[in-house]
């Protein structure tokens, strides 16, 4: 299972990449494998301000719709428009082209408080 060391993780199987005060969020390789066959991604609206834990996006496979919760508080600045044409990028490149949205953080420290790769590996066994 691919769990890059440079990312932070949540127990809801999201990853977070910090760059300045912008965090990019997606779902982990483990999550996409569990979901399989992602066929639709509902992106959050730009400019929406969110508290940590708000459901902001939906990833749908043939079998089910899964809410994506924003792991850190902030303002949505971009959704990955490429997913509208090709939602399967979430399966094929979960840490790269399959990213879901970017958020301008209220507090950078909230990212540091998330799980590191070692802790997440422990979680998924």
């Amino acid at each position, binding site marked *: 299972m691919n769990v890059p060391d440079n990312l932070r993780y949540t127990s809801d199987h999201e990853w977070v990449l910090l760059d300045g005060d912008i965090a990019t969020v997606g779902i982990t390789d483990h999550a996409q494998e569990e979901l*399989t*066959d992602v*066929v*639709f991604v*509902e992106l959050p609206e730009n400019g929406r301000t969110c508290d940590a834990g708000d459901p902001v996006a*939906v990833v*749908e*496979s*043939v*079998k089910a*719709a899964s809410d994506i919760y924003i792991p850190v508080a902030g303002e949505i600045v971009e959704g990955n428009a490429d997913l*509208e044409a090709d939602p399967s990028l979430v399966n094929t490149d979960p840490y790269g082209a399959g990213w879901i949205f970017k958020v301008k953080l209220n507090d950078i420290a909230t990212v540091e408080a998330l799980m590191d790769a070692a802790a997440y590996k422990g979680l998924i066994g």
Partner: protein
Amino acid sequence: MVPFAGWNMPVQYSSIIDEHTAVREDVGIFDISHMGQFFVEGEGAEAWLNSLLTNNVDKLAVGEGQYTIMLNDQGGVIDDLIIYREAVGRLFLVVNASMIEEDFAWMKKHLPEGLILRNESDCWAAMAVQGPNAAGIFKEFFPNQELPPRNGMATWIHEGAQLMVCSTGYTGEDGYEFFSSSMDGSMWFQRFIDADVKPCGLGARDSLRLEVCYPLNGSDLSPTHTPLEAGLGFFCDLNKDGGFVGCEALTEQKTDGLKRRLVALKYTGRGAPPRAHYSVHDKDGEQISELSSGVLSPSLREGIALAYLPAEHAKIGTLVDIDVRGRRFEAKVVKKPFYKRP
């Protein structure tokens, strides 16, 4: 794995789309051991079942089967099933897993003296082998046996145990439903897997049947809807001798005209996959129904669904909107089925 009618069932083994595609293009196998198997035996078994089921049992020669429906007195659906005439005075019924007890109780209540009704659901393992290459696997396994024609059944002794094979299915593909003793079930399932038949779960079973508009009892069929409303009039012989339970209600409904019909809806554009219970709205925004089934069709890559719509919205070409978490996606009433084999 998910709980289903008291069983623990896999939604998928690998991926719904892979499994779905295997059945459309090659061959897949579904463990359907959860389904119920009843036998009715005795002189006059055919006539009695004819009085309880919508289709005409008299049309069945020995070795033939038909899709049929069991109704309550109001013409609502108790269960849909397949009945096979194994021999004169011996009939084999395959019913839905969730309905085994209710079906059995209903039949027992109507059972005349002199006929035997047996619930053998625990005795049989069942698997559906479906897809264009299903026949080839059969030939490989049983070189001396003829695969029955469409809707036919055959039974024989193989390696000392009884097998039954019925050329029926729930996918719109050629294939058969294979019954062995429950003890031998896992052995047979493994044999099919070893022959490169793809194991398929409930997810692909649902997407395959929905593409060809086969209804699912409990979702698309219910005690408050008649088979005429469900578009299953072809399987209801209203003119057969002696009628059947629910026949009067259907005849009356046919005379009065249907007020609602189960229609096939297809998205006009891209959208979030439609799913059961999403609300359906007319173009003025009024809610007119909810989806009874829905899926993003793996073969067509389009959202497809079934819903009971008021007659005035049920015409082919009518546009409606489906609400997905507050967003509306347009869908059109289309001709059934969504998918036809190329």
